[in-house]
């Protein structure tokens, strides 16, 4: 095992980590805002990959150009999810909330399987193909581009949440729903916006990944699990924590796969989850 192989694993882990970070940021935003874990997050990712795939296969639109459409569709999907499901379970017990979003995940996955069959699909001959070589390290162009777009989206998300008025409204609602309503922030609209942005993040990640990932109905499961771990690791409701957590998970996954055994990637990430929630339940960057 040479230094170059390890460096190669670090680079690919880093690139994957940026994508995990964006997916986790969407989850964390929703979790922090209304204390509901979206167990259908992986299925939403799957939907966005399929949206990108169908736009390519039916309209011939390359995934790079269909990103805005995919993001818009996912944002609408988020608002609809809030309007038809989440709105009713806001005040319910946690048990009900878990069952409801878990039910949504079963529903979306089964419906997708029914409509599109469980076949594996992929985008043939996308605009971005091939790889570049820097100092004996090979980087796939679609992977590199996807990670950069995700990082860019992440920066925009961070600026939006911390600098704009709507973003501050989101934070206020997350901290104290009733107090925010008293000062005139409509919490219901904030929740809808939170869902739209949360799933919009997933739309970016899914759209970019459809360039080089196989697209099938169960694709989201592992990503959602990693996103759960990243949210726990990064700290409850901390957007910037997700960035570090996503990168850590990406690195653990690729280095663990290289050094121990690639078929048990999930177990290494799971070990991190257990360590974090047991020894530092507030996460690395949690406020409390």
């Amino acid at each position, binding site marked *: 095992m040479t230094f170059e192989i390890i460096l190669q694993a670090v680079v690919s882990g880093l690139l994957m980590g940026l994508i995990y970070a964006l997916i986790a940021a969407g989850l964390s935003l929703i979790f922090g805002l209304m204390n509901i*874990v979206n167990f259908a997050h992986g299925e939403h990712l799957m939907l966005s990959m399929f949206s990108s795939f169908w736009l390519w296969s039916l309209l011939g639109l390359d995934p790079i150009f269909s990103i805005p459409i995919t993001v818009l569709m996912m944002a609408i999907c988020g608002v609809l999810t809030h309007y038809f499901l989440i709105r009713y379970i806001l005040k319910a017990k946690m*048990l009900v909330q878990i069952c409801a979003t*878990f*039910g949504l995940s079963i529903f979306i996955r089964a419906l997708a399987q029914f409509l599109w069959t469980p076949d594996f699909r992929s985008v043939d001959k996308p605009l971005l193909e091939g790889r570049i070589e820097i100092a004996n390290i090979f980087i796939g162009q679609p992977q590199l581009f996807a990670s950069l777009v995700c990082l860019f989206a992440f920066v925009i998300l961070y600026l939006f949440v911390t600098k704009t008025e709507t973003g501050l409204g989101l934070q206020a609602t997350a901290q104290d729903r009733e107090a925010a309503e008293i000062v005139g922030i409509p919490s219901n609209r904030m929740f809808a916006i939170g869902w739209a942005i949360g799933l919009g993040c997933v739309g970016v990640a899914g759209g970019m990944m459809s360039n080089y990932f196989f697209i099938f109905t169960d694709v989201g499961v592992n990503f959602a*699990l990693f996103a759960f771990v990243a949210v726990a690791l990064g700290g409850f409701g901390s957007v910037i924590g997700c960035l570090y957590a996503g990168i850590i998970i990406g690195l653990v996954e690729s280095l663990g796969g290289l050094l121990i055994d690639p078929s*048990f990637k999930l177990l290494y990430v*799971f070990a991190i989850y257990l360590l974090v*929630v047991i020894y530092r339940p507030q996460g690395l960057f949690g406020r409390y």
Partner: protein
Amino acid sequence: MDSILSNAKLEPVWHTNNKIIFLLASLALFLIIFPLFGPSSFYLHLMIMIFMYAVMAQSWNIIAGLSGQISLGHAVFFGIGAYTSSFLFVEYGITPWIGIFIGMIFSALVAVLIGIPMLRLSGHYFAIATLLIGISFQLVFQRWELVGAASGLWIPLTEGSSWFAFQFHDSKAPYYYIFLIFFILTFLFAWRLSRSKIGFRLRAVRDDYQAASSLGINVAKYKIIAFAISAIVMAPMGSLFAQYILIVDPDRMFSIEISIIVLLMTVLGGIGNIWGPLIGVAILIPVSEYSRMYLGGTGGAVDQIFYGLILMLICIFRPAGLISFFPKHILERKKQR
């Protein structure tokens, strides 16, 4: 709209008046003589599935309904039960009758080992951890050569029926009675448990763990006890199902669908009530078996679409489950003089 946990009124139907006892006794009698009517093997299979899933849902109900922790990886205990008894039979020729109990012990051990690190987790974090554990177990068993890795264990067929090997090739009736016995025992056990001191302490922990803790209840200990009991109830179903279909493979035994369906049936019927799972099972299993018969295969996943839809609808409109449709006077405990 009632939420699941705050309706203390929907506790078990436990006022044992003569009417209820008569009703239950006649139901039990009917189930015992049912095979004598000579039903087709499809109906026997249907009843076996109902018994099996009722026990599994009851197991989930103990951890979720009594102690308030949502487990999304309950298939783990099913799989451990199935693998333990089958492995002992295939490798050492130990009769599954003993294997069932060893499976229960293993299952309880795993529950305690999982339970100890997850003590401090609650709510979402516990649910996510169980989801991860369920998938990890499947992953490990898919690659564990000793137990046949991805192709699993094939239980060798005996010539003719054998009580020792737990195989009956001529008729499904013996399976029916064995599942029926476990079904009745489990419901009696759950009924006793919900009335016992452990049951009351678990509910206290579930409703307000700080108050429970201040009354001297060891919250951590009781959470582990609930998890272990739930595992013990789940494991024999894995062993029995393995003997019923005679093949044990990680994709089937640790399937996330098992974890989903036990949750769904309990939530549909009414969580925290010992009759809830039975109602959920009595509705969903016939629907699932008939839809498999008429719509064919699992490829279309039509039943899963309905499962997801039902789960969402019940959470929106009837979080206390279908049992909350029953008139109040049946559900509430009679005031004691």
